[in-house]
Every structure is written in structure tokens, then in C-alpha cells.
């Protein structure tokens, strides 16, 4: 679960961090704004996912490694609501919540349909990739258990 979650978090995070500045250059005139809370907390969240993926792949499995990964994972978990609420608290570059219909907010029905369709498709993509990642973990555990049996000389 941690491996799949961190890998997919990194993939989708990189997708935003790569395409966001390109969009920002076109729309805002600057690719990145260090004063915008949403941008920076999201960048930090992606960095946490990158750390988790690299740590899981490079460090030997042990109590210390698991504790470090769990602590960073909790930090990332705490960052999620901060990132989500960032545009409500501070509106430097990103606008506040616009989906909810209000006096000064709300979206055109066509844009709203497109937005929800896009979100649905990305959810499907996420589920498909999570299944692939889960299958890899299953195969890896299968292989490790076989190698373990070979080491013990009890393979039959």
C-alpha cells in the first residue's frame, strides 16, 4: 500500500509539477511563485513522495527504515489538508474554491461537466495503475519467498 501510494503520488505529483509551471508561464507570466501557498505545499508533497519512493527502493528493510518512512509518510498526510485548504486561506495566485456556486463563484455548466469527466477519468487511471502496482508487489513477494526457500534449502 505504501509503495503503490508513494509511487502513484509521485507520478501524479510530477504530472502537476511539470505541467503546472508551463500553464503558469502562459497564464500568469511566471512558472512558479514562491509566495503562493498552494504551489509550495504541493511541491513539498511531491518531494515527500519522491523521498518515499527513493527511500523504499534504496534502503534495506528494517525497523529504522520503516520508522523513518512512516514519519515522512505522516508528514505528507498532514500536508494534504493544508494543500487542500491553502487556496481558502491565501489567494495569491490560485483563486479560492470556484466549484461551489455562489454570488462571485461558480463554473459554466460545460466547464463543470468537463472538469468532473476529467476527474473521473483520472480516478480510473489511478485505479488501473494501482492494480498494476499491486500485482508487482505480489509477484515480488512471491519471488522473495521462493528465494528465501532456496537459501534455506527447503525448496521442493
Amino acid at each position, binding site marked *: 500500500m505504501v509503495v503503490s501510494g508513494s509511487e502513484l503520488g509521485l507520478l501524479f505529483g510530477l504530472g502537476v509539477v511539470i505541467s503546472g509551471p508551463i500553464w503558469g508561464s502562459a497564464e500568469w507570466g511566471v512558472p512558479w511563485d514562491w509566495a503562493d501557498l498552494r504551489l509550495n505545499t504541493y511541491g513539498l508533497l511531491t518531494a515527500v513522495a519522491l523521498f518515499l519512493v527513493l527511500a523504499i527502493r534504496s534502503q534495506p528493510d528494517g525497523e529504522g527504515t520503516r520508522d523513518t518512512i512512516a514519519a515522512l509518510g505522516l508528514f505528507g498526510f498532514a500536508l494534504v489538508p493544508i494543500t487542500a485548504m491553502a487556496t481558502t486561506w491565501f489567494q495569491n495566485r490560485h483563486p479560492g474554491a470556484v466549484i461551489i456556486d455562489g454570488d462571485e463563484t461558480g463554473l459554466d455548466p460545460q466547464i463543470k461537466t468537463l472538469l468532473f469527466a476529467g476527474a473521473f477519468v483520472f480516478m480510473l487511471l489511478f485505479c488501473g*495503475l494501482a492494480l498494476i*502496482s499491486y500485482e508487482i508487489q505480489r509477484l515480488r513477494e512471491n519471488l522473495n519467498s521462493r528465494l528465501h526457500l532456496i537459501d534455506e534449502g527447503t525448496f521442493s
Partner: protein
Amino acid sequence: MSGLLYAIVAYSLLASLLCFYLFNQLSTIRFLDMEIERHNGRNFNEESLKEPSEDF
């Protein structure tokens, strides 16, 4: 026109990233499948029971 160019660049990068990740994941599945097959019980025992060759 400039906006279209930005969009093409951004979506190309995103598609490349996704393709790279998918290719990597599917290659890993194929590799693990082959390794499991290689370490399959019967094949392993036959290999392990072979006498060392004279050259060895």
C-alpha cells in the same frame, strides 16, 4: 497560438511521463514473471542436482 504551443508541450511531457511509467511497470511484471518461472521448483531441482562439469 502561444497558449496552444504551451498546451502541446505540457501534454506531450505528461504523455511521455505516463508512457515511461507504464513501460517500466509492465517490464517489471515481465521480469518478475520470468524470474519466478526460472526459480520454479522442478527447474531449480534439476539444475541443482546436476553434477559439476569436468571443466569446473
